[in-house]
């Protein structure tokens, strides 16, 4: 019999995070047996590129599309069309606006991610001092949501001694991120921590702190992959950083997609969807579900995980 085709469309290829998610998808496929995974994504992280890919997936009559979107709104028209043709669309990681998908699977809740990063920064600098954020592009949806959550968290009395002095954008380019990080260090002599919720950014910030010989004075934290961050943890520029498990995320998203295709899930509010070894997801009022709080990595465990993803 023909296998059920489930396509995983990622923001861009050549991104360790999504490669790990792909691994999880394959694991789910193997477990489910009759599933074939198509792993694809544009070269550069643009909505236009993803639209082209989705339209070809529609032509191929895949059964489901699991996608991490580059633009929450721009993809709605094309995914709507896909759903009209009977394709189940669920988004994971970076979501699509509600009209354009059946389910959004958050790796964790944005609030938790925001809180976690502030917590890590606060821990590193002893609860007081200036911090700054180094983001990817100004257009990255999930980055912006997390930044908003971080600002909310900072407003809590527990963090009243921490001051966010600046938010800058490195466009996910190593040279620009590095230059922006240096700029932050230069123009804010009292800076204690840089939070970079993006892998290129956290890498560049770590390197900048080392190069400026500020290890121990300024700490970098944020979101990154253990395999990419191990070096910076070792150098001391990064005390801890967080990430959810992308393998689990890919696994759960694929599994959920299978449930939709086989009619075992519909995405109604309050519904509970079984996702294999990850247990059950509960769909909330806006059609979203969250996996687990992000996991923190530090010098004790980073070596171990760097071999996995």
């Amino acid at each position, binding site marked *: 019999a023909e296998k059920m085709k489930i396509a995983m469309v990622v923001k861009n290829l050549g991104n360790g995070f999504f490669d790990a998610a792909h691994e999880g998808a394959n694991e789910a496929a193997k477990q489910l047996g009759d599933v074939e995974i198509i792993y694809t994504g*544009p*070269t550069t992280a643009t909505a236009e590129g993803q639209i082209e890919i989705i339209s070809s997936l529609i*032509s191929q009559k895949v059964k489901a599309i699991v996608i991490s979107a580059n633009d929450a709104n721009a993809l709605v*028209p*094309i995914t709507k069309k896909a759903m009209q043709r009977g394709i189940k669309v669920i988004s994971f990681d970076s979501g699509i606006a509600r009209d354009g998908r059946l389910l959004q699977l958050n790796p964790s809740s944005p609030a938790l991610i925001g809180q976690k990063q502030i917590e890590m920064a606060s821990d590193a600098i002893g609860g007081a001092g200036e911090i700054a954020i180094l983001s990817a592009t100004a257009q990255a949806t999930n980055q912006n949501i997390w930044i908003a959550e971080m600002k909310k968290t900072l407003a809590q009395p527990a963090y009243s001694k921490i001051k966010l002095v600046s938010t800058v954008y490195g466009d996910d380019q190593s040279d620009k991120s590095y230059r922006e990080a240096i700029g932050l260090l230069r123009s804010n002599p009292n800076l204690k921590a840089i939070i970079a919720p993006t892998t290129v950014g956290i890498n560049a910030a770590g390197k900048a702190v080392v190069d400026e010989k500020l290890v121990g004075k300024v700490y970098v934290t944020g979101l990154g992959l253990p395999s990419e961050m191990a070096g910076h943890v070792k150098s001391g520029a990064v005390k801890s950083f967080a990430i959810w498990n992308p393998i689990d995320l890919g696994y759960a998203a694929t599994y959920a997609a299978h449930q939709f295709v086989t009619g075992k899930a519909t995405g109604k509010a309050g519904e509970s969807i079984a996702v294999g070894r990850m247990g059950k997801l509960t769909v909330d009022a806006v059609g979203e579900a969250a996996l687990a709080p992000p996991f923190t990595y530090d010098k004790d465990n980073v070596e171990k995980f760097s071999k996995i993803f």
Partner: protein
Amino acid sequence: MNAISTSPHQSAAPGSRYTILDRKAQRLSHYLAHWEALLALLLVAVFVGNSIFLPHFFDVYNLADSTFNFSEKALIALPMALLIICREIDISVSGTLALSSVAMGFAHHHGVPPAGLLFVALAMGAVCGSLNGVLVTRFALPSIVVTIGTVALFRGLASVILGDQAYTGYPQLLIDWGQGYFFDIIPRPFVILLVFAVLFAVLLHATSWGRRIFAIGSNPMAARFSGVAVDRYRFALFVATGTMAGLAAWLLTGRIGSTRPNIAMGWELEVITMVILGGVSIAGGKGSIGGVLLAVLLLGMVTYGLALLNIPGVIMTIVVGILLLITIAVPRLLNRKQTKK
């Protein structure tokens, strides 16, 4: 030596000593030697190949839908072809597109009615085009330099206005045109593309304007000496390119229903690739709209075929790059062999 001849001269020369034919005797082999013929053959080959080997390729609905992927770019490629024939180039088109889209979003949020958005986009495009045009003609700057500067400026302004926000919630009219169909099958942007292709083809190949564009591209100074208002043509072509980028912005915004400053990132190179593959000489003075359209379809079919195979986008760029290199290099290599003999 300089004595004046007194012998009465014979009245007007009795015709030339040389006979000049009206035009070259056209043989079939001449038509085949045209670039367009090569492209057409390639297109047929790709089409047939894809139809045989790809199960989902030969499907009218799918083929029709695949045109969405290139119609907007191709719309910009048309005036770009004219510009390149005229020895100019516009790198800033994607920036113009972004800024036009932002202008539409801005206008929409400030109560401009849906029908007015088209004019907002076109006007913004025209403004961007005129800035390029003024800088190039008034200050005699090379257009590649100017537009490398303006692309940063236009995209930058888009990001100044939008910041980390996005414009969404565009009216249905836009969506109808950006992603709608005629007769439920032919995508509207593709129809618009065909209409404009015919328009531009007539303009370039059948009118005195087109002739002058070729004349400017072949020798700008001589064109000026022949009474062609060179700078006016250049300026007009920049404005036309900007305006078409505005039109593309209108369609693209309708298609994706949102505006962000990084919309259409990197399109300039794809547009220029289409034009060059279409046989337009980067040195100016040569090219045809037919060729450009064939190149657009060829690229469209190739990338669509690759997409159906789920080949990653990166490999597609390699394929397109190699296609470009091969199509320009092979005729040259063959030619060289011939002359060597």
